[in-house]
Every structure is written in structure tokens, then in C-alpha cells.
């Protein structure tokens, strides 16, 4: 029965949003992971979502798929701290390009979207159970 596709759709949404939450957690956890060079420093990561239009004809409802995780290419911050054990020859350390405010907003958005999908799942479950009891 095609109604079960709704679980698949909401499930794909939940897994995509939880991945986004995981990535946000990783970004926040590594916000202070300094490095001694430009290459080795942690860069903020972001997931890329895409809609999957599979099926044909009237199967027009779409799942979400995570296409991949990309690194933010904003410039990393350099900080002059000659006393730091990781400082380079000029006395600079490199800070990740994680924007705390952005990450917090991302986290709230992801958790709201996740809740939305959970709500869809719960409601659909109740409706399908009521359909199963039809005629009793």
C-alpha cells in the first residue's frame, strides 16, 4: 500500500536532519581546535540536501537525500599568539572558520525540522492504525 511511503519520506527527513545536527555538533565542538598551519585547521562542514524524485507517474512525493558534506571555504582566522605551542614561525595560530551564531541558528532549524518530521510520522501512524480498525 502506498500510504506506507509516508514513513519512508518522514524517515528520510529525520535522518537528513539528524545528520545536520551531528555536523553542527562537530562544528561547535571543534570551534576552538586551533592549528599551526593554514591547511591543517578544521573548517566548518555543511550537509547538502537534495530531493529524490524516484518512481514514476503519480509517485510525485520526494524523499530527501544527503548529497554530501562540504567544507565551508570562508577564510580561516589567524590570531597572533607567539606563546602558543602550535604557533608558526611568525607567531600566528589558525582558528577554524566556525561561526558560532550561524551554527546555533542551524542547530535550532535542524531540531525544528526534525520535530516536524516526527509529528508527521506520529500523525500518519495514528491515521493508519485507525484505517486498520475500519469496520470493526
Amino acid at each position: 500500500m502506498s500510504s506506507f511511503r509516508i514513513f519512508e519520506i518522514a524517515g528520510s527527513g529525520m535522518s537528513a536532519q539528524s545528520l545536520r545536527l551531528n555536523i553542527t555538533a562537530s562544528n561547535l565542538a571543534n570551534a576552538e581546535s586551533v592549528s599551526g598551519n593554514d591547511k591543517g585547521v578544521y573548517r566548518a562542514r555543511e550537509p547538502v540536501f537534495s530531493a529524490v524524485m524516484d518512481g514514476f507517474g503519480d509517485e510525485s512525493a520526494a524523499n530527501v537525500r544527503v548529497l554530501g558534506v562540504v567544507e565551508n571555504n570562508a577564510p580561516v582566522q589567524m590570531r597572533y599568539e607567539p606563546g602558543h605551542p602550535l604557533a608558526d614561525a611568525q607567531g600566528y595560530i589558525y582558528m577554524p572558520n566556525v561561526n558560532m551564531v550561524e551554527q546555533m541558528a542551524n542547530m535550532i532549524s535542524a531540531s525544528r525540522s526534525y520535530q516536524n518530521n516526527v509529528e508527521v510520522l506520529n500523525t500518519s501512524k495514528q491515521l493508519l492504525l485507525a484505517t486498520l480498525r475500519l469496520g470493526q
Partner: protein
Amino acid sequence: MPINIDKALGIFPQALTLRARRAEIIAANMANADTPNYKARDIDFKGALKQAADRAGSHDVTLRRTDARHLAVGGDAMSEAVKYRIPHQSSLDGNTVDAETEQAEFTRNAVQYQATLTFLNGRIRGLMTAIRGD
């Protein structure tokens, strides 16, 4: 006179199927709330139901599609009724899903689904009474 169960149940089975499909489409909108370039969709329920009722009433033959590359012949009620939602506000990433609108529509659809179920249950109970005769 034989009892035609399809007729006895009225429009409600078709309505229930359409409601389920509408729930699916709105669920897809909500799942794709953060997908760039995703366009929110919904169905024209009235039109789709009318079409489904017409189809159920007439005995016209439709072709079954067994391959993704087959084209719909004569169209089916759902694919024609699926339309794109007009966004209240455009966003930079090309996504037109408004989470609050979708939430409201989903809830409305859920309640209407339950209403249809209740009507259908009433019809079934009527049939049962007729069959049992007590």
C-alpha cells in the same frame, strides 16, 4: 437486487485514497523544508476527487504502466492534480516550503482523513446492519 458494495460506500474510498496521497505530498514538503531548489507541492483536492469519482462511475479502461518510461494514457487523477504551491515569500536558495503552512495543511488533512474514516465506518455499519438484520 444485488447489493453493490462499491456503490454503498459512496465517494469515501476514493476520498480516503486522495487524502492519504495528499498527506504523503505534504510530508514530502516538510521533509524537504531545507532542500535547496525544492518546490512545495500540493494537490487540487476538489478536482482530483471529481476526476476519481467520474472514473469510478464510468467503466473506461486505463492502461497499466509497467515501466518508468511509459507515459500516462488519459492521465490519472493524481498526477494531473499535483500543483506547485505559490510561495508567500521567496527565499534565496530557491526553496518554496513554508513550514508553518505545511504544518497547518497537514493537520487539516489529518482531521479530514479521520472524518472520511468516520463516514466510511458509518456506511460499513449500515451495511452490517442490513446484512445481520438485527
